[in-house]
């Protein structure tokens, strides 16, 4: 399994390298990897479906118990049918869909390959960190694929929205996963689910997980990113936004449902949001005229349905959920590919312009109707089987009835927009001229046919579907025993609801007035897209305001804030609980007296200097005086460093001060703050002095760490200079960290200064600059 994921990543690189020569056929090469993965998983299907989960472990950082665990069970198996099976189909389709000589195919193919690998990792991951890493990797791939070349504004905005929404959800999910793992004491998902913890922290964790679910699977109120993401090429949408990525949320729900299906914090939000999403998505799909956007809202609606089923946490619902998961992946990817074919062969996908496509391209129409029939829930397709089971799962009364009503209504809408799709895409409309259709070849039709026919095969051969999906609900500990999947359940509530959905759906489609009265009457607070935009601009505003308040641009203000903070945080604590030294000595060494006087004189003079340079010079007198005190106290290393740093500081000061007026400014506005500054400075100074006095009394004997250092310096570090032994051996890790910080700070400061100079110089670019830039170009 690890090998398969690595292979995806490797092929991504290869595809990039050969894209120039291979053109659009890179997709055929990229298709090979998911196809092989699919074949490999299928070859081991007997063991997997018998409940024999395969586990692979990659030890990552064994010392802290960090390992990457992959586990192939029934749920993963079904997801892999979508991820690798549908993936291979979509890749193959893309090879025919891309125009010859199209630009950027290498990038798209490589990203799709990475995405397929990440998705594979996501559905196989059995420890929370692996899950999270692959989860975010799919988010990033989606961002890059939706954004495309980043030229169009719409693409950029949609990509950013998809990234922001799903990444926020991902972070919440990470928090939830960590809480959950802490509560159960293991990072393995299979173990967490097997022994689910409980408690308030777990409820919080579950809600956080749900945030990840609803953002990734485009549930209300986060759904607008999915229709927005339709700016991506149609095959990308077919794969990411129908079959694979948006299923990740539902997958997560399904993954944890066997452990937490009975926890109200888990199933109530999932079922409520799922039902709402199903209705809103269906309603919006009725209004769209763009085939692809129509499908996108259809996907939102179906994802809501899946969320309800997976979230409900009963055996029957789980059976329906996993069946529909499979069915939806098949029919929705087929439908997206149909839209891709129509778009490519006619140049439009607007139902107000399309006419007569069905007559001219009957094969395409047949496959599309097959897929749509599965979506609408017509026998004998897999969608029908799944929907029947779903209705049955909620026939036990109680609160289930509300859910039953919601999903029945949702199914009515599904049927309505399915009919709308058929009519819009294929019907011959009397008031429109026939659209010119160039006949699609086998390269386009084949990939459409495969998933569409798979839905039919699974539907007719229901036992086959049963063997694939039955393992998942069997692991579910809650709810009554689920009945088997079957085409004919006998006459009962489910069948009645199915018929009702079909009839109702036709009526809703036939009489648009039945829903059109809603248009414009929904409160604008429900407009999720506007909510998203408001949230983003609001965040920007807050950032602006906070920055404006905090970063006023006055160095004295910054310094003042720092000093006051030090006083409040450190000073108060220090004064309150450190005793005064018991014994006072004026000096240890007579040399300290003149040096101390020198330091005092320097400090005094620095405060009263009128010229900046004088003040700086006196300040360094203080520094040098302190360095000399270090020597007297027997710290030559410290003194040397202090001398050198003092000298360097002086030079830097002189450099900078050359640009300042020679005298301190004596403006009234500045003078008026004088006493405030004085207070802050005096407080800080007194605090530091006091700290010196207090801490000199706090230490009663020489610390053991210092003794150890001194004893071990020669034997272990091979150095007789203890200071150096500490720096390069005992605490060498600190040293490496510090010099890294120093390097980063130097680069940062340099770029800030250079940027300031550049902006200052820009209006009159001297010829020296152009020369310098030419030199740079030449040297490159």
């Amino acid at each position, binding site marked *: 399994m690890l090998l398969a994921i690595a292979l995806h990543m490797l092929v991504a690189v290869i595809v990039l390298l050969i894209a120039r020569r291979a053109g659009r056929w890179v997709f055929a090469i990229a298709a090979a990897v998911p196809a092989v993965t699919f074949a490999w998983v299928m070859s081991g299907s007997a063991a997997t479906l018998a409940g024999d989960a395969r586990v692979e472990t990659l030890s990552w950082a064994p010392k802290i118990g960090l390992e990457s665990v992959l586990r192939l069970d029934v749920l993963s198996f079904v997801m892999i049918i979508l991820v690798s099976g549908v993936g291979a189909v979509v890749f193959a389709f893309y090879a025919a869909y891309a125009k010859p000589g199209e630009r950027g195919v290498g990038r798209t193919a490589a990203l799709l390959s990475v995405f397929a690998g990440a998705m594979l990792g996501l559905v196989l991951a059995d420890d929370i960190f692996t899950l999270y890493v692959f989860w975010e990797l799919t988010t990033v791939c989606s961002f890059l694929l939706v954004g495309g070349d980043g030229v169009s504004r719409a693409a950029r905005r949609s990509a950013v929205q998809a990234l922001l929404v799903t990444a926020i959800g991902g972070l919440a999910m990470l928090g939830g996963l960590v809480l959950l793992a802490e509560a159960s004491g293991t990072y393995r998902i299979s173990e967490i689910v097997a022994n689910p913890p409980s408690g308030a922290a777990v409820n919080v964790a579950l809600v956080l997980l749900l945030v990840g679910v609803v953002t990734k699977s485009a549930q209300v109120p986060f759904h607008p990113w999915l229709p927005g993401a339709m700016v991506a090429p149609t095959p990308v949408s077919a794969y990411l936004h129908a079959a694979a990525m948006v299923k990740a949320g539902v997958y997560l729900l399904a993954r944890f449902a066997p452990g937490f299906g009975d926890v109200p914090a888990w199933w109530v939000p999932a079922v409520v949001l799922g039902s709402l999403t199903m209705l809103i998505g269906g309603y919006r799909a009725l209004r769209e005229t763009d085939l692809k956007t129509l499908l996108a809202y259809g996907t939102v609606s179906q994802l809501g349905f899946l969320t309800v089923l997976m979230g409900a946490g009963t055996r029957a619902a789980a059976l329906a959920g996993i069946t529909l998961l499979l069915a939806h992946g098949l029919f929705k990817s087929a439908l997206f590919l149909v839209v891709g074919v129509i778009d490519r062969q006619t140049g439009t996908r607007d139902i107000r312009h399309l006419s007569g496509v069905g007559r001219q391209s009957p094969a395409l129409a047949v496959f599309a109707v097959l897929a749509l029939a599965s979506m609408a829930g017509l026998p004998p397709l897999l969608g029908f089987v799944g929907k029947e089971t779903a209705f049955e799962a909620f026939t036990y009364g109680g609160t289930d009835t509300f859910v039953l009503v919601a999903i029945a209504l949702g199914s009515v809408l599904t049927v309505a927009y399915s009919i709308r799709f058929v009519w819009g895409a294929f019907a011959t409309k009397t008031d429109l001229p026939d659209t010119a259709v160039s006949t699609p070849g086998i390269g386009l039709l084949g990939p459409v046919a495969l998933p569409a026919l798979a839905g039919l095969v699974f539907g007719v051969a229901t036992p086959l579907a049963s063997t694939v999906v039955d393992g998942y609900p069997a692991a579910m500990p809650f709810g009554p025993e689920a009945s088997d999947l079957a085409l004919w359940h006998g006459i009962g509530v489910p069948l009645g609801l199915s018929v009702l959905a079909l009839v109702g759906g036709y009526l809703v489609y036939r009489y648009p007035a039945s829903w059109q009265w809603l248009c414009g009457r929904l409160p604008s607070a429900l407009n999720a897209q506007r909510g998203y935009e408001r949230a983003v601009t609001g965040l920007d505003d807050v950032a602006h305001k906070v920055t404006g308040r905090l970063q006023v641009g006055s160095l004295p203000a910054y310094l003042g804030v720092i000093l006051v903070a030090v006083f409040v945080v450190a000073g108060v604590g220090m004064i309150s609980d450190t005793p005064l030294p018991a014994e006072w000595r004026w000096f240890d060494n007579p040399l300290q007296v003149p040096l101390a006087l020198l330091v005092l004189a320097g400090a005094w003079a620095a405060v009263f200097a009128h010229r900046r340079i004088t003040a700086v010079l006196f300040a360094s007198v203080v520094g040098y005086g302190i360095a000399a005190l270090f020597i007297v106290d027997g710290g030559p290393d410290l003194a040397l460093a202090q001398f050198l740093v003092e000298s360097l500081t002086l030079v830097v000061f002189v450099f900078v001060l050359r640009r300042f007026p020679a005298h301190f400014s004596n403006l009234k506005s500045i003078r008026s703050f004088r006493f405030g500054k004085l207070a802050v400075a005096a407080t800080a100074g007194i605090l530091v002095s006091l700290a010196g006095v207090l801490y000199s009394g706090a230490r009663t004997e020489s610390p053991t760490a210092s003794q150890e250092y001194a004893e071990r310096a020669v034997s272990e570090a091979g150095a007789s*200079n203890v200071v150096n032994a500490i720096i*390069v051996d005992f605490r060498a890790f600190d040293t490496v960290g510090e010099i890294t910080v120093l390097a980063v700070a130097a680069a940062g*400061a340099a770029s800030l200064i250079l940027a300031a100079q550049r902006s*200052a110089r820009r209006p009159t670019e001297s010829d020296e600059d152009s020369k310098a830039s030419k030199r740079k170009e030449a040297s490159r």
Partner: protein
Amino acid sequence: MKANPESDPQPNSESNSEFNLHEEMWNDWDVPRDQLLAGEYAGGVWKRSLLLESAARIVFPTVLVFSIYLLIAGHYDAGGGFSGGLVAGLAFVVRYVAGGRGELATILRIRPLVVVGMGLTIAVVVALAPLLVGGEVLATTTFDVPLPVIGDVKIATSLGLDLGVYLLIVGVVLDLLRTLGAGIELQAPGDRTSKREGA
């Protein structure tokens, strides 16, 4: 720097090359070739002092040697990579103060951030090197290296880390000179006429 006339004769005018050579010698015999004397470029924006420039050049190698002494001696005596690097950095500061940017350009053809990067790389490589022989990160080993004349010298592998620190500090100081110093040269008042050719 000014091209050295002796090492760079003009081969294209073969017919009167001898004459040219004579002429060049006639014209250029007094062009300063010694590093201790001022170059002919106009370096900084401040007034140049021959005394300061020459003194800086005389002191410079000695200070660098001293900085390397500090680097190596740090294991046994006062010093170390940090102090050594600061001393070396100050040597460059002195040159800079004496002659400005051009003065630095004559002695250094490498970009400061490259020096910083080299320092960091060396430090990290030295830190990780013990892993190759199965040791812990940052473990120290000492070797006795017999050197002619001097005798046996005990060298600890942590000297490598010190060397990294040394280079990094030098690079940071140089970077400071490049950015802050260059900013002053460009933006100093009355700086409209200065030429910086040859830098």
